[in-house]
């Protein structure tokens, strides 16, 4: 297997982008990534695109070919593949691209993610997102996506000493980071009071515990590490790629409050990178809801179950803490265009490793991404480092 490096990144701003179509979004992200790598389209050998549900959000399927076409590559006939694993689609597209380069099958590969969510109303998008869980045995009974994570929160708070305030501190921290991120959907800081007085969505989760509905796209370009310096002076090496699955329905899990797929994907990633947890300098985790960030920190093995709330309160996960988490603002403040999120996480880690993260820059040489599909039925973990 060959070593793989990231040689270019590009990301649109995230938000309710009424003026931008699905096609506009991925063309912009792809162009930014190509410019960053100082490449032209004709250098690209293959593309993998993470997208959860263009079929329901914009009534368009066949996204792989569409993207290659509008990227101006139809005459080159490159293989272009859509990858879907709900909210983990982006992370999984990145993993497929890494595998393609590592195997020797392809050299220069684009991994992209895109989601255009605001062309349908809120009710329709809530229903579409519920398809990330078990439609037949959860969605049919009135389960919403926030509702499922709320049931994780209820179980967690019944068993462990997590306070409602500690949960809110996750959102406050991520908004503080997002305020420093030019691409973030929400660029204003919030207070504990903002979270605690916001409307209940699914008890105990309130509006400010939830990631928003977002339009956006992100793209990265991969190359064999041995060729990376042809394109960039600052290649970032992929130290590990790992993926795990679990039951589609939350009620069938071994433990409601522990995402076993996160535990297993994390263990596989650390084994592949041959690194202890202590070597991770910062990470982007899947905080679709505040409780999800708490679970992610624990299930990835950075502390015992029940301790992540206290770590958050003590500032360990803040920008100036020992383990900054979600320096981009996370899904909560940067926004969550579901198929693009996993790629945006990679973009953020690369920016941090290159020292290009501006006001939110933290020190470090190794970062981790953690991307979750559904309530934990798919988890993708990557470890990235400077070379």
């Amino acid at each position, binding site marked *: 297997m060959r070593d793989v490096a990231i040689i270019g990144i590009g990301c649109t701003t995230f938000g309710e982008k009424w003026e931008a179509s699905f096609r506009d979004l991925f063309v912009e992200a792809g162009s930014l990534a190509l410019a960053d790598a100082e490449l032209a389209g004709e250098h690209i050998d293959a593309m993998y695109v993470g997208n959860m549900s263009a079929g329901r959000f914009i009534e368009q399927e066949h996204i792989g070919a569409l993207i290659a076409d509008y990227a101006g590559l139809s005459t080159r006939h490159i293989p272009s593949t859509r990858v879907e694993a709900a909210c983990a689609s982006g992370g999984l597209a990145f993993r497929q691209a890494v595998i393609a380069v590592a195997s020797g099958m392809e050299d220069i590969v684009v991994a992209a993610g895109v989601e255009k969510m605001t062309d349908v109303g809120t*009710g*329709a998008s*809530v*229903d579409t997102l*519920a398809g990330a869980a*078990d439609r*037949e*045995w*959860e*969605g*049919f*009974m*009135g*389960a*919403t996506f*926030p*509702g499922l994570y*709320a*049931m*994780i*929160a*209820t*179980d967690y708070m*019944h068993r462990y000493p997590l306070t409602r305030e500690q949960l809110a501190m996750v959102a406050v921290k991520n908004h503080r980071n997002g305020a420093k991120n030019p691409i973030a959907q929400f660029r204003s800081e919030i207070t504990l009071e903002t979270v605690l007085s916001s*409307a*209940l*969505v*699914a*008890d*105990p*989760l309130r509006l400010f515990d939830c990631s928003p509905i977002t339009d956006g796209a992100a793209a990265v370009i991969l190359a064999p590490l041995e060729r990376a310096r042809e394109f960039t002076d600052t290649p970032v090496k992929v130290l590990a790629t790992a993926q795990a699955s679990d039951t589609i*329905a*939350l*009620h*069938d899990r071994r433990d*409601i409050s522990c995402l076993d797929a996160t535990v297993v994907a994390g263990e596989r990633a650390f084994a592949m990178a041959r690194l202890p947890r202590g070597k991770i300098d910062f990470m982007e985790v899947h905080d679709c809801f505040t409780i999800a960030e708490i679970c992610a920190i624990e299930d990835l093995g950075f502390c015992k179950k029940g301790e992540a709330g206290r770590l958050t309160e003590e500032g360990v996960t803040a920008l100036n803490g020992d383990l900054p988490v979600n320096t981009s603002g996370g899904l909560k403040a940067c926004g969550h265009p579901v198929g693009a999120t996993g790629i945006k996480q990679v973009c953020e880690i690369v920016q941090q490793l290159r020292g290009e993260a501006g006001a939110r820059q933290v020190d470090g040489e190794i970062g981790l991404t953690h991307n979750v599909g559904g309530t934990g039925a798919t988890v993708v973990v990557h470890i990235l480092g400077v070379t």
Partner: protein
Amino acid sequence: MSVARFWRKIPQRYNLVGTRCESCGRHYFPPRSFCPDCRRGGKIVEYRFPGTGKVVTYTVIRSASEQFENITPYVLAIIQLDEGPRLTSQVVAKPDEVAVGTRVRSVFRRIMADGDSGVIHYGTKFVPVK
């Protein structure tokens, strides 16, 4: 949801019909054709759950998808049936009448309708046992 898609699950949705493995005694809901523990050594038979169990975890849904908007707020819960399997359903009760561990029993209720003129879907919800 199309009529056929709903209709083919009526035994499960109306009457909690699952399966039981006679080799190891484990119960399954929804039904399984193979016991994951015993595989080919298992003997699967139909089993109708009486519908008693307890609340494992719950929430109150205040913002729902379109089909459920008219019944918000409602209590959504993961329920563990006394035989072991867990399922997601609604508990017909006020939020303060439900807690982790609350004993419940199944009831036949309207779940949702496909618009004003579409099919009305029925199924199993739960109520607290006084």
